[in-house]
Structures are given as C-alpha cells and as structure tokens.
C-alpha cells in the first residue's frame, strides 16, 4: 500500500534530497521500517534502536498525532499521508 511520507528539509538530506517519499506498510511502524531499509541514514532519526518512536519527533497520520492514535501500531491505508515533524529550537 502506498503511503506518502513528508519530511522536513533537515531530514531530506538523508533521502537524496527528497521531501516527499512513497513507502509501503499497513502500520506506521511498517512504513518507518520500509523507509529505514531504503534510507539507512533516515531510520535512526525516526525510531530508536528498539524500534520505538521518539518523544522529540512527532509523526502525524494525515492531521492526527500518532501518539493519540495508537503510536507506531496505528493502521495506515493507501492514500494516507505521514508528516514527520522533529523538534527544532531555532529562533
């Protein structure tokens, strides 16, 4: 199932400059694993060594924070979009 994944510029350097990617999976975890396999540099920015989400990277399934929708186990289906939002502090 093709899921669109949207990354901020700071992570796009790890995906050959691509801000939007298509990935496969039926849960957020599977989509993250698919991306981590294809872009080894990106994996550790989306999940920790145990395959869990970070508290300082918020992932939205469409417009919803996945933390309140089952976390990495949240189900995704074709046409869904994941948006990755890392904490940034610049001012």
């Amino acid at each position, binding site marked *: 199932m093709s899921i669109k994944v949207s990354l*901020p*510029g*700071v992570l796009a350097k790890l995906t050959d400059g691509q*801000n939007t990617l298509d990935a496969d999976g039926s849960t957020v975890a599977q989509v993250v694993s698919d991306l981590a396999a294809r872009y080894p540099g990106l994996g550790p920015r989306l999940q920790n060594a145990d395959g869990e989400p970070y508290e*300082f990277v*918020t992932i939205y399934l469409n417009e919803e924070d996945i933390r309140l929708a089952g976390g990495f186990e949240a189900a995704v289906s074709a046409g869904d979009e994941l*948006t990755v939002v*890392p904490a940034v502090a*610049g*001012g």
Partner: protein
Amino acid sequence: MTATHVEKHTDLPELSRDEILRYSRHLILPEVTIAGQRRLKAASVLLVGAGGLGSPTALYLAAAGVGRIGIVDFDEVDVTNLQRQVLHGTSDVGRKKIDSARDRLAQTNPHVKLETFDTRLTSENALEIIGDYDLVVDGTDNFATRYLVNDACVLLGKPNVYGSIFRFDGQASVLAAEGGPCYRCLFPEPPPPELVPSCAEGGVLGVLPGLVGVIQATEAIKLIVGTGQPLIGRLLLVDAASMQFKTMKLQRNPSCPACGTREIRELVDYEQFCGLSPEADGSPDGIPEITPVGLATRIEGGDDFDLVDVRQPEEWEIGKIPEARLVPLDTLTSCLGDFDTGRDIVVYCRSGARSARAVAELKSVGFERAWNLAGGIIRWSEEVDPTMPIY
C-alpha cells in the same frame, strides 16, 4: 483574557487624538475598531528573545499599539545576527540587544511602554517576569528555555505564542491557552544535545524568522483583540523551500505532566532536563586539546599527522586549513576505516564543539592519539591566520 476585556469595556484606556490618527487603519477595520485598539493599548506582551523571531514580532506589536511590551534578552548584537534580526542595525553591533531594541521600538511607536530585562530567563525569575504580562511570545533559540517558558506559562495560565525555526522550516502555534495543549503535548521530551544543531552550525534562511515571527505577532494581536481563529490546538508548519503551509491537529495530551496530570507544580532544572551540564562550553571533560599555535607549530615543523575538518562542505568552502581533509561529522562513523591508529589525529570545526564530539567518538573506538583544536577556526583566525574568514 479577551472576554474579560470585552466585559470591562469601560475600564479600557482611552485613545488620544494622536493615537486615533496613528491607528486609523485598525479603527476602520470591523474586526478591530476602537474597542479592539483599546484592548491592544491595555495589553501587555512579553517577548522572550530579541533575535530572529523576536525582531519582527517586536516591530509589529509595537507598531500595532500594544500598550506594554517587555523584552528578555541577555545577548549582544553580533554582526552575524544582522542577516535576519531586523530589529538591530549595523551601528548596533556590540550593543546589548535590549538597548538596541528599546531605541528602535521607541522610534517605531512612542506610545508603547517598553520594559527590558537584561537577563537569561531562568527557573528563578521566570514566574515573576512572565506573571506581569498577559501573554508570552516565545522567540528563544534553545530547548531548555522553550520548556521553561512552556511550564511557566502553564503554571501561570498565560498563553504562549510559539514559533520555532531551522534552515527552511518553521513551526508556529498558540500553546498553554485555556483548555488548549502545551509544548510538552507537542514534544514530550527534547532531543539529546548531540542531535541539536544550532543556527550557528546548521544555518537558517534569514527571511524565515521574518515569516514565522510575523505569524506569532498576528496570533498575539488576534488573541488580544479577540478576533479570528487563533492557532490553539493547531500546529502550523511552514516550508519556505516549497512555500507550503500545512496545519496539523495539536491535541491536549491527558497524560502531559504540565497541562494534563499537572504533576509539574514548579519549575525544574531545564539544562539538566535537556541533557546539558551547566559548565557545558563545547569542550567535554577529558577531551585532549591542541592550541592553534601548537597546531601551527606542528604544521610548520612538517610533522606527519592527520588533520581532519568535521564541518559541512558549505563551511569548508568558506575557508579551510590547507593541510586538512574534510570528513563532515555526520559521516564520521562511516569513514572510520580511513583513519590510522598509528598516526596522530587533530580535528577541528568552527568553534571546537563539534570537533570535541568527533574526538570523543574517535577515542571511543580506539583512536587514542586524537586531539581537538581548541576554539576551532574562530580561534585559529584570531591567533594564527587572520586571513581565515570568521563566520
């Protein structure tokens, strides 16, 4: 806040003839009118930081006629600030930012009462300073102060108009408003320090804080006037590269220790919370250093050693030590095979902070003969080669 103001309409300060003329384009706007302008005059806003975000926010809030504006900043104007911090000018370099800000804002609007705090916002002073204002605009540049501002705003019940930037990406929201989510709902914990590049290391598009700061000023004015739909419960994402704006739902987290369970009842040590030791100055304990003069002596003496620049290629192009080779810090782990345990290794970056992390990594995998160039390119330029550009 706004409802109270509406109910106490008669308590609002009157506008003088000068003010009526100055704010006339607001007064004829049905969403503002004289009542809204009087609410602005009655309002007080605290700006935490007079840098990239604080600059446009301060200018627009002053121009809009916010009655009392407070600014907290301990820093001085540096020439590298001027690419984005439009509150300050070339002649202000070296002055306190609060002094530069006060002069500029008085020129923008003499009707505004300005209050300045020449201090870092800390757990000791935050509640007292913030408590004297209606709302806060967060224009800080580090996670420790962002969590501090958040927790103080939640404890005091003050809205926190949030903005944050990095490179081409920006975020904005209204946090800690009554019934709304807070910063800890968005990011329960900060990233570890080694994953946090500063604008000095990572760069920032100069106009981006302009975009995001103006959004913060807009939200502050809407909250005060009581018009429109504030960014409460929404996170605005700004991508200046593709010029796309997206809005995500930002829900209150029932288990949030600040605004949910309310287990945070007082301010904590935010440096510690963010994994920063108080003495952290970019040279972690136990990292051996070589001075710029020491390095120059070794180069002139023809010593055989491996001089490694761990900055980004864009920085390498600005200026480099000729004998060096480039291994950006984020590629170091995959390039360890290129290092020789039998040779001395000297590592440098711009300031000495990233190279200290590189030396720590090298030593942790067995390269015992590694040194950090103290003070990086900046000190090299000051003490050895004045033709080396500082940036």
